[in-house]
C-alpha cells in the first residue's frame, strides 16, 4: 500500500486536529469503536434547515481514524444531510488522498459511520425526511 504517512495534510490533521470535542447540547450523539484495533469515535452534532449546523468528533486511536475525523468534520460543516448520507468509502479515500487496504479502511471509515448513524437516528426521532 501507499506511503500515506508522508502525506502532509493528513499528518497535519493528526497533529493539529480540528473540530475535536463534544457539544454540550446536541441533536445527535453516537459512540462506536472498532474492536479489532481499539479505535473509538464519538460524534455530536446539531442540524438546522436540513444541514449540519455544528459538528464535533472525539476520536481516539490511530492516525487514520483521528485525521479522518478531523477532515470529515471540516468538510461537513454546513453541509446538507442528504449529501452526507450519500458519502461513501471512496469519498473518504478521496478526502484522505490515499488508497487504503480493507483493514486500514475500517479505521478511516469509523467517523463516517458514526456521523451517518447519528443523522439516521435524528431523522427517525424527529421525522425529518432525508431527500
Amino acid at each position, binding site marked *: 500500500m501507499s506511503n*500515506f504517512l508522508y502525506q502532509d495534510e493528513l499528518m497535519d490533521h493528526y497533529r493539529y486536529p480540528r473540530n475535536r470535542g463534544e457539544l454540550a447540547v446536541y441533536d445527535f450523539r453516537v459512540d462506536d469503536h472498532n474492536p479489532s*484495533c481499539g479505535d473509538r469515535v464519538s460524534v455530536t452534532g446539531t442540524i438546522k434547515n436540513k444541514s449540519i449546523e455544528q459538528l464535533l468528533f472525539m476520536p481516539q486511536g490511530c492516525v487514520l481514524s483521528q485525521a479522518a475525523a478531523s477532515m470529515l468534520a471540516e468538510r461537513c460543516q454546513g453541509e446538507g444531510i442528504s449529501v452526507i448520507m450519500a458519502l461513501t468509502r471512496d469519498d473518504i479515500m478521496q478526502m484522505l488522498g490515499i488508497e487504503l487496504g480493507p483493514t*486500514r479502511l475500517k479505521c478511516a471509515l469509523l467517523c463516517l459511520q458514526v456521523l451517518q448513524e447519528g443523522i439516521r437516528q435524528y431523522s427517525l426521532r424527529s421525522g425529518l425526511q432525508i431527500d
Partner: protein
Amino acid sequence: MDFKRLRADFPIFNEKRPSPKYVYLDSASTSHKPQAVIDALTDFYLQKNASVHRGVYDGAESATIAYEEVRQKVAAFIGAACSSEIVFTPGTTAGINFIAGAWASKNMMPGDEILVTQADHHANFLPWQRIAQERQAILRVLSISAENYMISCTNQAHESVDHNVAEYCIDAACRAFKNIVTERTKLIAIPLVSNVLGDIWGDNTGTLKALISRAHEVGAFVLIDAAQAVGHQVINVQELGADFVVFSGHKMLGPTGVGVLYINKKLHAQVEPYQVGGGMVFSAAEHESRWQMPPHKFEAGTPPVASIIGLGAAIDYISERIDYDSLRLHYALLMSYLVEELALMQQPVIIGNLHYIISGSHIINIMVRNIHAHDLAGYLASEGVAVRAGHHCAQPLAHALGYEATLRISFHAYTTREDIDQFVGALKNACVHLGKL
C-alpha cells in the same frame, strides 16, 4: 546449521522481487515456503494429479499411496503411536471446531468444566465458549500473568476464585493445578506456544506434562494448540500424554489449507464424524450408514491432496535441514539482539516475560506509548518491513493485559540479524514521524 544457506532455500527472498527491501517478520501469521515444498505442489499438479481413495488406475493408486505416506510421516514427526491417530483438516481452527462439534457436543454435560487460558487464540477459546453455552457447561478461564506467566483462575461469571497461583515451576504448578483441575473438569484447552506471549511452558514442558497428568487423574482430557510450536521445537504427543493436538501446515513451512488433528486412539470410539459424506462412509443405504474406521472416518469429501503432499515435503525439509537446538539458539541470539536495540530506543514496551522471550522464543510483542500499533505497522510497511499489528486474535488476553493493539515481530529459520537491523531502523523513523509534537 548455516542459516544463510538455509535462507537461500526460500525463493521469495531472491533478488527478482520488485522491491529491493523485503523484511518479513510475520512468520507467526504464515511462514514462507522452501523451494522443495513449492516443487512438491507443482510436481503433483503437473505429473501426479488424481483424487485419493477413489480410482483404481495407476495415477489414483499412486496418489493414494503418497497421501497415506504423508500421514505416516506426520505420525512419526509428532511422535504419535500410529498413523490412524492423524486426521488431515483444513487447519488448526478447523481441527478445534472438529473436536468441539464431534466430541464435546456429545460428551460435555451440564456442570462439566472446560478450562481455557486467557492466552488462547480465538480458535481455541470461542469453540469452548460456545460449547459451554450450548451444553450448560462452565467455562473457567485461566489467566496468565505477562510478567512471570503465573496462572490463576476465574470462572465464567468473572468472579475471582481464590486459588493460589502457579509459578513457572513444576512443584508450585502442580499444587495449583490440583486446586484448579477438579472432578468436574472435562476438558482443558491450552496453547503450547502463545501467539502473543511466545513460549509459556519453557523448554522442558515439565509443567505442561504435570497439568496433563493431573487432568487424566480426574478423568479430564487435554487439547493442545500447537500451531505456533510445530516446526520450531520437538513435539512428542505420546511423551506429553496429550489427547488432542492441532496445528497448521502453513505455519511450518507447508502449504495453506491443510492442518493436522491428532486424536489419541483411546478416544476414537468417543469421537463422531464431524462431517459426513463421501470418503468417510463404509456403506451407505437409504436409511442407515456405517462409517469407515479412523482416520478415514474423520475425513469427509475430497481432501486437499496437493497441499497434503506439500505438507509431507515440509516435514522432509524440516527433518533434513533444521536442528531444533540450533534453531532455538538462532532465535535466542536474534531476540537478544532485538531486545537490546529496543532497550536503547527506550520508547518501546515489551509485553511478556523478558527472560523467557530471549531464551528462544520466536515471537515478541511490543507497544510504543502514544503511537498506535497500526500506525507503526503502516509506517514500517512503507519501508518494506512486514509485521503484524492488532490483538492477534487474542482479545481476552488484550483486555486482561490492558492494551488495544500491539506490534508483533516473529521469526522463523530464515530470519536474519539484518532483518532486525532494518526493523529497528524503520521503527526509529516511525517513532520520529508519528510522535506528536
